[in-house]
Structures are given as structure tokens and as C-alpha cells.
């Protein structure tokens, strides 16, 4: 089960999320967006976080950056240890020193995350001026270097331009340059390629792989696209309805998913295969956050669900070898999946 890659520094924990819970207070009641989430990010690895909208994957990432809006959001428990400091209890000045410097973030929508009234150059230089105390000249020099590194052609020209003058792919590069300029230890990428076209997505993914090699940062890659995960990540965390349901090395996950949800996800994406089998689909929809099922949150949609699943919520069970799963009947998953390709009557 050991990873085939021997990256330098792998195995050393950079970020550790312990029992994180985040709730949102809304008119309809309390929405527990993140429920007892724990995972770690090792030095130099790319960790994928998969889940559907509302699974809590983005909220967890925002918590790391202390960007969960409060109110209505509130962290109700847990710790986030980064270099042995708890990010959740640090004073705000300390957080500001870490943000954009040691941990930085790339957002999904490059148009709305860049400030339209500042030039790209200024926005790329900003973290340097703020955190590293660079002079204007030096910051400019390093910004140009970084722009070249992320593949922006004619950076001398682009550095003077405003976000609206750039294409989507270029804007995303500016975002990445901005995020990487201080050489952060951890880069959080929230759906970095979802808004981009296929060919541009391929460019950006290639770029992120290269940058990771060159700068040796860790990356948390949040996405709903399993193709991207498979291509980029070393380990994967699968989230459903605010909980971690499975953690796995990438190789094991696609061949032997243990959680029925993971299995369903993998089977429901169309692949470029000549035979084109009918897609498996997970029936039903994500549970209403204000009316969570009593037992396992996935039980109402699960084809393996037993009485136990509907009664009692399973715990995240450590299976060794870097794998963990939150399911009562994970032993059945692999066995039955082969025979029930056509299935889907569970409801």
C-alpha cells in the first residue's frame, strides 16, 4: 500500500485538521456544514478533497484560512494545527501574517477574486510588500519572474494591465502567481480549473504539477472532478454531507473504493471507453442539511444500506495503510459492485 513515489519530505505532517466542526446559523435553523472533520496534509504532497456542492469541502478550506464569515458561520469545535500552531486560536494579526505568506488560496472564479481596479502587477506584488517587506523594485522583479514561471507571455506588458483585459486562463495564472509569490508551504486550490476550458485546464494542471515540483509546496486540491483528482493528487479525502467518508491513497481508491458513495461517484463518471456502458447513478439527492437522516447520512441513497446503517451513524474507521472509511459495510462494497453495475434500485 506504500506510495510509489518517493518525494522528499513526504510523511512529515504539515497541516493537521482535528475534529473540525463548523455551523451556519440561518433562518431555518442550524446548518452543520462541517461535522467532525479530520485529515492531514503532508509536506510536499497533493491532497485531493472531493465532494458535491454542500459537502463541506470548501468550508473546511475556508476554515484553514479563517475566512468563514462569522456570522452566520461559527466554528463549533476542533483544531487546525499548522506547524504546531492552532490556526483557530491564533490572534487575527498572526493569521494575517500567515495568509498569503505561508498558506495561500486559489479561488474558482478568477474574475471575481481579482480586484478590478488594480493592475495585475500590483496584485501579484501585494503579498510581497505586505509580508516580506520587499522594496518596490525588488517586488516588481520577483513578480515578473513569477509571471514568467506561471507562463504569462510578455510579463513586462501584462504587469501593467487590469484583470478585465486578460482572458480566463490568464487571470487564473495571475491568481496562481499571486498565491505562489511568497512561496507558501501550503497552497489551497478551490476548484481552480472548473471555470476554465478543457485545453486551458490542461495547461493549468500541468503548471501546478510543475510548480509543486519546483517549489516543493503542499497542495490541497478541492474539486468535484475525479479526473482532475486522479491526475493530480497523491491522496484523496472524500466528503459527503459535511463528513469525511473515505481517505485513501490515490491508487487504491480508484481500484477498490471502500465507501459506497466513492464507488458510486467513480462509476457515475462517463469514461472514454469504446463500449460505453450505461452510467451507474446514485439515486436521490444530498440530504437536506436541516433534516439529516438519523443513521449514516448516505444510507438513504446507498445500495448496500442495512438496518444498522439507518439506525446508527458509523465512525471513521482506520483500516491501516493510510486508508480510512466511514461505513458499516465497507467489506461488502467491492464484492457487490461488480455484480450490480445495472443496479440502482436502492432508495
Amino acid at each position, binding site marked *: 500500500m506504500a506510495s510509489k513515489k518517493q518525494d522528499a519530505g513526504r510523511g512529515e505532517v504539515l497541516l493537521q485538521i482535528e475534529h473540525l466542526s463548523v455551523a451556519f446559523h*440561518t433562518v*431555518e435553523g442550524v446548518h452543520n456544514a462541517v461535522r467532525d472533520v479530520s485529515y492531514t496534509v503532508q509536506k510536499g504532497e497533493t491532497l485531493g478533497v472531493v465532494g458535491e456542492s454542500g459537502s463541506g469541502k470548501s468550508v473546511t478550506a475556508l476554515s484553514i484560512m479563517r475566512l468563514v464569515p462569522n456570522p452566520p458561520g461559527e466554528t463549533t469545535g476542533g483544531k487546525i494545527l499548522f506547524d504546531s500552531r492552532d490556526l483557530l486560536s491564533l490572534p487575527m494579526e498572526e493569521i494575517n501574517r500567515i495568509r498569503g505568506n505561508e498558506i495561500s488560496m486559489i479561488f474558482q472564479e478568477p474574475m471575481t477574486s481579482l480586484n478590478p481596479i488594480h493592475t495585475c502587477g500590483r496584485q501579484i506584488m501585494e503579498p510581497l510588500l505586505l509580508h516580506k517587506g520587499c522594496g518596490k523594485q525588488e517586488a516588481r522583479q520577483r513578480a515578473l519572474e513569477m509571471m514568467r514561471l506561471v507562463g504569462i507571455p510578455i510579463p513586462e506588458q501584462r504587469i501593467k494591465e487590469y484583470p478585465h483585459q486578460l482572458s480566463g486562463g490568464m487571470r487564473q495564472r495571475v491568481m496562481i502567481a499571486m498565491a505562489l509569490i511568497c512561496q507558501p508551504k501550503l497552497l489551497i486550490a478551490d476548484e481552480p480549473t472548473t471555470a476554465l476550458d478543457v485545453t486551458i485546464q490542461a495547461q493549468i494542471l500541468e503548471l501546478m504539477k510543475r510548480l509543486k515540483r519546483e517549489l516543493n509546496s503542499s497542495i490541497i486540491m478541492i474539486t468535484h472532478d475525479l479526473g482532475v483528482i486522479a491526475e493530480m493528487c497523491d491522496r484523496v479525502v472524500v466528503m459527503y454531507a459535511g463528513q469525511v467518508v473515505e481517505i485513501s491513497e490515490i491508487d487504491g481508491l480508484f481500484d477498490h473504493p471502500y465507501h459506497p458513495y466513492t464507488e458510486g461517484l467513480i462509476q457515475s463518471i462517463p469514461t472514454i471507453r469504446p463500449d460505453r456502458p450505461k452510467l451507474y447513478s446514485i439515486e436521490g439527492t444530498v440530504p437536506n442539511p436541516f433534516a439529516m437522516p438519523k443513521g449514516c447520512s448516505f444510507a438513504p441513497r446507498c445500495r448496500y444500506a442495512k438496518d444498522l446503517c439507518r439506525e446508527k451513524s458509523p465512525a471513521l474507521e482506520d483500516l491501516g495503510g493510510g486508508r480510512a472509511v466511514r461505513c458499516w459495510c465497507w467489506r461488502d462494497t467491492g464484492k457487490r459492485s461488480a455484480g450490480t453495475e445495472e443496479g440502482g434500485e436502492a432508495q
Partner: protein
Amino acid sequence: MKKIKYSLRSSSFVRMLRTNPLFAIGVAICAAWLVVMVFADLIAPCDPLLQDMAVRLQPPSAQHWFGTDSLGRDIFSRVLVGSRISIGAGIQCILIAAVVGMLIGGLSGYVGGILDDIIMRIGELFTSFPSIILAMVIASAMGASLFNTLLTMCIVWWPNYARVMRAMVIQVKSNEYVEASRSLGASRLRIFFKEILPNSIGSIIVLATVDFGNAILLFASLSYMGLGSPPPAPEWGAMVSNGAEQFSYWWVATFPGLAILSVSLGANFIGDGVRDYLDPKLRKTIS
């Protein structure tokens, strides 16, 4: 089915009352005035037109709660009965201006092109003058009567509604559900009334409730200058104007003034509440 709809609506109304105290106050004020308007004759202790020179310009007392004016009329009764004229005028003026403005603005935004340009320039012509001066000019040209004053106010006011409606329609018509209706074969008229209008009417309602206070004030100011309803009628603006001539008798102008203030305040509160309710960002936390 109807029942579900009703309970949803009413529960969000109750929720608004609970979460938004200003809205609740506004509703209370307006509801109270509504009751007064309907039952003014029964509540009023005296005949609002009855003159009694023996008791002229008396301060508030147990018998005349708000005192009496220069002709010895009971101010309390006049304020109560006057609510029919003043609030009635406000509602009529807003209603007509809103409907006219909505149709013209809707047409302008939906059809676009040259028609849009022409309508908007005409609207600007009206809004480029201060509304009170324009209203005075028109009202004095047509002669002072309740009907003319209302007409004047509508002429002054429709461009506001037309402008808001036009902006809303232009925004709404770019929505995909409008295109969907077109792809089903719906006619332009049907699309306008079934798809676009219901989705743009919200901001008109908000503007109307906020404007309601303004309408009463404009009507009052016109009456103050003698252009509103003719003398004996208990109109609030006219009463304030009458009282302003007698500074030493403070109560004559104060009470009708307070009435105007309370109604426009109530309407404003309701307008703010409705706007908050219609704001999709605020609603998102609900849905």
C-alpha cells in the same frame, strides 16, 4: 394546494414581523390609519366642518383633544376625517403613477430601440424640473381641484416608475426563462405579462411604498399653496398651512403635521421591509 401557498406566505409575513421591528411598527401605523379611514365618521367626536366661533383657537382640552382652529372646528375630528382625503390622494396618485409608469417603462425596456430612446427622453424632460415646481405650474394652469391635483402628481411622478421598470425589464428579459418561453412559441405579449412583469414588479412595489409618504407630502404641499383640495375640506396640508398663519397657536399646525409624518414614516418602514424581503441575497439564507 392553495393552502400550502397561503401558509408559506403568511409564515414569511409573520417571520418578517418578528425579525424586523421597524417593519412591524410600519404595519401597525398603517393598519391603525386604515381603521381610522374606514371608521372616521364613527370615531370623530364632532362634525369636522362645523364652525363654532365661540370656541375658536382653543388649546387642546378634554373636549377638543387637539384643540380648535381659527373657525372653531375640532382639529381632532378634522385630522381623522382628513385622513380619507390625504391618504386616499396618496394611494390614488401612487397607484396611477405606478401603473402608467410601469406600462410605459415596461414597453420601453422590452421593445427597446428608438421607442426606448423617445420615451426615456420624454421622461427626462419631466424629471429635470423639481417636482414641486412642475406640479405647481401644471396645477395652476389647470385650476385647483382635487382631480387636477391628482392628475398633476401623476404627470410629475410616472417617469420615476418608468425608469425603474425599464431597468428591471431589461435585466429580466435577458433571463433564460424568457428564452425558454420563446422557444415554446409564446407571443411577445404573453412573455411580457406572464414572464417579465411578475419578476419586475417587486421593485415597483418597493418604490411605491417608499414614495407613498412623498406623495402625501407633495399633495400636502400643493394644498398648502392652495392648489390642492378646495378650502372647507379637511385636508392635512391645507390644515398645516392654515395653522402656519397663526404661530402662537401651535396646535393648529402640529397635529395634522404629525399625522402626515406618521403615515409617511409607516409607509417608509413597510417599503424598507418589503425591499429587504425581496432582496434575493437576504432570501438566500432562507431557501
